[in-house]
């Protein structure tokens, strides 16, 4: 017997690298996973209230929902818990977990693209890989997928794969470990995680890619597994007195919907409304194609428009003041903005921002009146002498006095006192176009400077 035990120990010793790699994979996920996994971990931490926040409004859904809803524009008590690639199945467990650790929210907005009512494309490679849910929840999902014979999740090797993922075995993680190197992704993932924090969960595609794909929708159907979970999700909301808004998000205006599709959609959601009477169902109007990055994901400009419309429509669910946390998210959006008209849209969306504009072309006020005028933004001419001509302020119409510490200082220099006690010496005249300095009037900090060159009767971001 003693020999057999020694032999067993030797066998384990030979397999030591296997065990050590699994342990490393388990203990240092931020060090090697790609940049989506930290978001899943962040999502879990928020649900488990490790961040110390509870929210009045939750957003649930897939990547379509993740790109469309901007929590920082909606409310300080709103979080986007949607996860890219997920279906109603995963979202049911998200809400279940959230409710376990937090008070029930007042309202939940739920949006899925049609695809995720029909199949799961990321269950293994995202949900399981990132250990978003507990082993028991994953097991339950597999059992249900098996019961419904959902081939996009269930396969003959599903239990083995479940074991491999739960134990962090190298067959599932070695590719990431090799590509990630020893801890080489830690810094990047920590940085990425910061964005999840400041944007309250919106993490996909913060930039603009203008390549929409046009789709003809022929039929609408929901696979049994996802229908089952969708109803469980709604039942969970009903049990906890949560007001549910089911939103079919805007799609590109060029998309077409067949009669059969519209009928299928209406029939399904009529049945849902019958089963869950308090639920509202919204099929949002289509948007111009330019507001999408692909067939269904809104780009940041589309998301801003949708979020503002949503906030107006369901104003009772959101508040109108902006917290410092929200403004940090907005700061980031201002920083990455690359269109002048959209920059003004951001100013229009948030009263806590102002912009100093230096116009070297000479017709900005006319152009503003013609192309960029927004209801919540007023243009004020600083009316300086010739030496510092063409300086304007764009600010909230209701709070005109928020920003006025600005005056010329020496040759082509403008001194700006944004409010945080510092003086910013701005030299905006070096370009032919408009130079825009965005200031967060709440914190009194300068957010960013954007130089738009005047080329072929258009303003184009320099660089």
């Amino acid at each position, binding site marked *: 017997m003693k020999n057999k035990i020694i032999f067993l120990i030797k*066998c384990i010793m*030979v*397999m030591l690298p296997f065990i050590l790699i699994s342990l490393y994979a388990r203990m240092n996920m931020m060090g090697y996973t790609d940049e989506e996994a930290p978001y899943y971990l962040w999502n879990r931490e928020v649900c488990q209230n490790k961040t110390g926040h509870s929210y009045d409004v939750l957003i649930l859904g897939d990547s379509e929902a993740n790109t469309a809803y901007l929590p920082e524009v909606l409310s300080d008590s709103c979080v986007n818990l949607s996860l890219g690639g997920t279906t109603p199945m995963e979202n049911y467990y998200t809400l279940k977990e959230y409710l376990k650790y937090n008070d029930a929210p007042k309202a939940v907005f739920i949006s899925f693209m049609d695809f995720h009512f029909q199949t799961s494309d990321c269950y293994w490679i995202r949900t399981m890989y990132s250990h978003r849910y507990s082993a028991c929840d994953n097991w339950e999902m597999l059992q249900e997928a098996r019961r419904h014979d959902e081939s996009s999740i269930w396969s003959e*090797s599903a239990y083995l794969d479940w074991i491999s993922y739960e134990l962090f075995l190298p067959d599932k993680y070695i590719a990431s470990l090799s590509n990630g190197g020893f801890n080489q992704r830690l810094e990047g993932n920590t940085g990425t995680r910061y964005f999840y924090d400041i944007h309250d969960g919106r993490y996909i595609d913060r930039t603009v890619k203008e390549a929409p794909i046009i789709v003809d929708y022929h039929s609408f159907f929901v696979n049994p597994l996802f229908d089952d979970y969708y109803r469980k999700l709604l039942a969970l909301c009903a049990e906890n007195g949560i007001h549910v808004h089911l939103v079919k998000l805007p799609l590109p205006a060029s998309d077409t919907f067949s009669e059969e599709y519209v009928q299928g959609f209406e029939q399904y959601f009529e049945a849902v409304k019958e089963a869950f009477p308090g639920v509202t169902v919204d099929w949002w109007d289509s948007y111009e194609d330019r507001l999408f990055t692909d067939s269904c994901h809104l780009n940041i400009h589309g998301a801003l428009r949708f979020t503002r419309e949503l906030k107006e429509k369901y104003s009772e669910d959101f508040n109108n003041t902006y917290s410092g946390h929200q403004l940090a998210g907005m700061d980031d959006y201002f920083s990455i903005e690359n269109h002048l008209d959209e920059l003004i849209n951001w100013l229009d969306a948030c009263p806590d921002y102002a912009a100093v504009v230096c116009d070297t072309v000479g017709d900005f006020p006319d152009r503003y009146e013609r192309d960029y005028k927004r209801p919540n933004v007023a243009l004020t001419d600083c009316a300086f002498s010739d030496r510092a001509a063409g300086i304007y302020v764009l600010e909230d119409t209701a709070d005109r006095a928020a920003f006025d510490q600005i005056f010329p200082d020496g040759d082509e220099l403008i001194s700006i006192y944004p409010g945080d006690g510092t003086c910013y010496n701005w030299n905006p005249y070096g370009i032919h176009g408009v130079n825009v300095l965005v200031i967060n009037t709440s914190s009194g900090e300068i957010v960013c400077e954007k130089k738009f060159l005047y080329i072929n009767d258009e303003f184009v971001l320099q660089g």
Partner: protein
Amino acid sequence: MLFNSGEFLIFFPLVVLAYYVLPGKLKNSWLLIASYYFYMSWNAEYALLLLTSTLVTYAGALLLERIRQKDEDPGHAGHLSRVVLTAVLAANLAILFYFKYFNFALDIAENTAHLFGIELNIQPFDILLPVGISFYIFQALGYLIDVYRGDTRAERNLLKYALFVSFFPQLVAGPIERSGNLLRQLDTPKKFDIPGVRDGLLIMLWGYFLKLVIADRCAVLVNTVYDAYEDYRGFQLVLANVFFAIQIYCDFMGYSTIAKGAAKVLGIRLMDNFEQPYFAESVREFWRRWHISLSTWFRDYVYIPLGGSRCSRLKKYRNVFVTFAVSGLWHGASMNFVLWGVIHGLYQIAEDLLSPVRAKLSARFQVDDTSFSWRFFRILKTFVLVDIAWIFFRARSLHSALYILRSSFDLSNIGMLLNDGIYELGLNTRNMNLLVIALAALVTAGCMRKRGVDVRKWLSGQNLAFRYMIYWGAVIMIILSLDLSGMEFIYFQF
């Protein structure tokens, strides 16, 4: 269930554990259940084929022995035996033909009819090739012929015989065992033996190393080139062909080694299927070292019955040609495989025809046949010949094989060896480096083996630190290859 699947890594320890815990009488029954489960994990229905082949050959063998024992008239007994043998052979070969060659035969019939202006338009059968069918049917037939010849006695215990045909480590890709070896080992139940189990596990580790680290890595490069062969030329194709030679060797050798190790863990010795084939100095020698269980099967049950070499030179060449053409056909229902077999047959005929000339030239130029350089040249020549034949084995069609062969002679891009061109064939720097290290280990082990060193014994004699460095090196390289794994063993299709 693949050897390189997680399923097997759970299945195997459970089988081993239960095997050694169960009392002696139940051990074979347990292995039989495990073997059928192993086979049914691919397609449960096809276990019926395995069972049919087993029952038919079992009954046939008993009948053959009974005829021999009871019939006092040798002439009549011989005639009756031949009838029984033919019937059982026909039944087994009919299964093989239907499931493996029917559509191929249909294709040939249609093409032939088309030549005469007749359109047959018969729909091909939608049949999935049962995994390992060529292996277990050949193993069962080998046993039957041995009984017919009186080389072995018929097995009366059906359970034991069924286990002989279906023994899971070698069921789906060999080695094709002989009754004299495997069946007799099943007579006695095995006890847990630490050195044997340790050896078995080490053999399995080496098998996994060959399959996962080398073969699967080579496969990436080979598949990249062969899937778009028209985009490549010259040295790129040569490199892909060389890598395929390595891939198929390590893939098949890997499987056989894992099979051998798994059997050894269970206390059963399987025959060696490879003996450093790429160190062969002639094609004939190559076939003594490559897929030994199949080549000896063809030698014993096809080549020798045809007359072997004890006949006129012309007949001998006919026998070689037929044996290798059939061997090619055994590998797959496609003209490519037949051609591959024919090429090997022709190689051997040419070698035999040219041997007097070679001997004369050697004497004339006073070449020392035992010198390293001469032997190295012969090894290289044999490898080139074998590698050319592999093109026909790997290519999807005759047209693509000929294109690859023709384009391989344009070596104007050999400079890719000196720049990063080699990394544009599907394998990145990291994987290429790992492959080079693994190949160095393979060649070292091969050289040691050729010098008569038993690598396993040698390793167990080394100090602990060195031993574990080797074990851990192998384990780490296998782990680093897991993202490439999941590929089937090439020989499963045969």
